[in-house]
C-alpha cells in the first residue's frame, strides 16, 4: 500500500458553514495547495491571536477526497477554546491555519470489506469513508453502525441513513426500533465477512463498541480505534 498522504501547514478560507444543531457546526474550507486525503485522516486547525498566541485541535475530515472543499464537523465542547471560536466567532470568508492530511492508521481506501461502529461526533470519519465508497461504487464493502442519542443529535444522520447505515438511537424510538444501544444481534449480520473494523467516538463509546465487536466475532487485531475525550 502506498504511503498515506501528508500535508504541511497551509491556510484555508471558510466558504460555507451551517449549524445542523446548536452543538454542531459544519465548516467547508477552500484549502491552499491542498493534498488530497484518504478517508479517516484528520486536519489540525490552528487559531492565532494578534500577539502570536495559538491554540490548535485535530478534527476528522468529513469530505470525500474529490470534494473541491474540505469539510469538518465540529462539536462545541463546554469551554472549548477552538470549538467555541468556530461556533461563536467564525464567519464565512475568515482564513484559518490548517495542517493536513495527517494520520496513517485510521484510514480506509476500500481494499478490504470494513465495518464502522461510530458514535456521536465520531461518525465524521465514517462519513468521509461512506462518501468515498459511494463515489467509487464500493458501498457494498463498507457497513456502518452509527450510534446517537436522537436522530436530530446524530451528525449526518439523514445522509448516513440514505447510504444504508444502521442507526442505533439510544434515547429515541426510531421506526419500529425501541431506543437502545446496538444489540449484538443487530450487528452480527453486518460483521459477516469484514476484514477490518473502525471504532470512533468517546472513550466510553469506544470501550462499548470494541466489546460489541468482540461479541459478534470480530478479531481484536482487526479493530482500529480513534477515541476522544477525558476520563475523570
Amino acid at each position, binding site marked *: 500500500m502506498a504511503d498515506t498522504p501528508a500535508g504541511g501547514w497551509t491556510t484555508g478560507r471558510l466558504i460555507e458553514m451551517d449549524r445542523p444543531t446548536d452543538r454542531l457546526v459544519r465548516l467547508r474550507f477552500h484549502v491552499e495547495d491542498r493534498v488530497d486525503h484518504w478517508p479517516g485522516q484528520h486536519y489540525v486547525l490552528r487559531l492565532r491571536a494578534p500577539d502570536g498566541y495559538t491554540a490548535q485541535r485535530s478534527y476528522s475530515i468529513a469530505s470525500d477526497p474529490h470534494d473541491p472543499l474540505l469539510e469538518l464537523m465540529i462539536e462545541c465542547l463546554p469551554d472549548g477554546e477552538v470549538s467555541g471560536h468556530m461556533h461563536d466567532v467564525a464567519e464565512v470568508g475568515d482564513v484559518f*491555519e490548517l495542517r493536513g492530511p495527517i494520520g*496513517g492508521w485510521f484510514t480506509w481506501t476500500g481494499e478490504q470489506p470494513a465495518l464502522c461502529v461510530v458514535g456521536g461526533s465520531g461518525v465524521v470519519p465514517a462519513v468521509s469513508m461512506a462518501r468515498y465508497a459511494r463515489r467509487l461504487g464500493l458501498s457494498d464493502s463498507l457497513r456502518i453502525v452509527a450510534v446517537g442519542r436522537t436522530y436530530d443529535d446524530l451528525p449526518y444522520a439523514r445522509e448516513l441513513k440514505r447510504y444504508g447505515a444502521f442507526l442505533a438511537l439510544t434515547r429515541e424510538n426510531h421506526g419500529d426500533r425501541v431506543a437502545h444501544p446496538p444489540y449484538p444481534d443487530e450487528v452480527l449480520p453486518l460483521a459477516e465477512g469484514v476484514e477490518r473494523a473502525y471504532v470512533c467516538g468517546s472513550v466510553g463509546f469506544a470501550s462499548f463498541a470494541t466489546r460489541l465487536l468482540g461479541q459478534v466475532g470480530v478479531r481484536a487485531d482487526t479493530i*482500529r480505534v480513534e477515541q476522544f475525550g477525558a476520563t475523570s
Partner: protein
Amino acid sequence: MPVTRGFTGRRRDAGARSDRLPPGQYDTGPGWPTLTAEVTPHLDAEKWTMTVDGLVETPRTWTWREIHALPGSSYFGDIHCVTTWSKFDVTFAGVSVDTLLEAAGPRPDAAYVKAHSTTGYTTNLPLADVTGGKAWVVWEYGGRPLPVEHGGPARLLVPHLYFWKSAKWVTRLELMARDRPGFWEQNGYHDRGDPWLEQRYQGDP
C-alpha cells in the same frame, strides 16, 4: 501565518504555570484524556512480564513480582500529549529504566530502543532518551494502580517527550543499533517528539 479574526485566546492565564506549557499546548486540568489506536487489552498482572533484550549482554525478563522487588522510582511532574493537552503535577511510580538496563547490560553498539506493547504497538526512542533518570516503567498513578485505559498494569513513561512515546501496556524494550520507526512514527508522527521543539508530525524540525 494570518491572525485569526476575532481570536484573542482564553487559556493564556495559566499564571505561574505558563512557563511549564510547551508551545501549542493547553492545561487539561483534572481530566486525563485517553487516546488509544487499538482495542484496550485486559491483562492479568500475574501473567505480565517485562523484557529487556536486543543488543544487551544478558537479555532479562521480570515477572510482576520480580519487577516490584527492584528498587522503586517515581516521577512527579508534567506530561504532554501531541493532541495538545498537557497535564501538570502528576505522580507515577514504578522502576527506572536505568535499573532495567543496568541488569541487562547494553552493548556498546546499542543506540536506540524500541518499546513493544502487548497489543503490538511499538514506539522508537534514542537510548539517550530513556537513560539518565529520564524514563520509567510505571504501575502506579497518583498512589493507585495504573488504570487499564491508561496502560495498566504497566506502561513506559518518558515524560520529556510527547506521550505517545510512553507506550501503554509495555512488555519489552528492544535495544537496537539503528533507529527503526514505531507505530505512530510510521503513521505520520515525528521520530523524536520533543514537545518544547513542537516535534509533532513528520516534517517538523
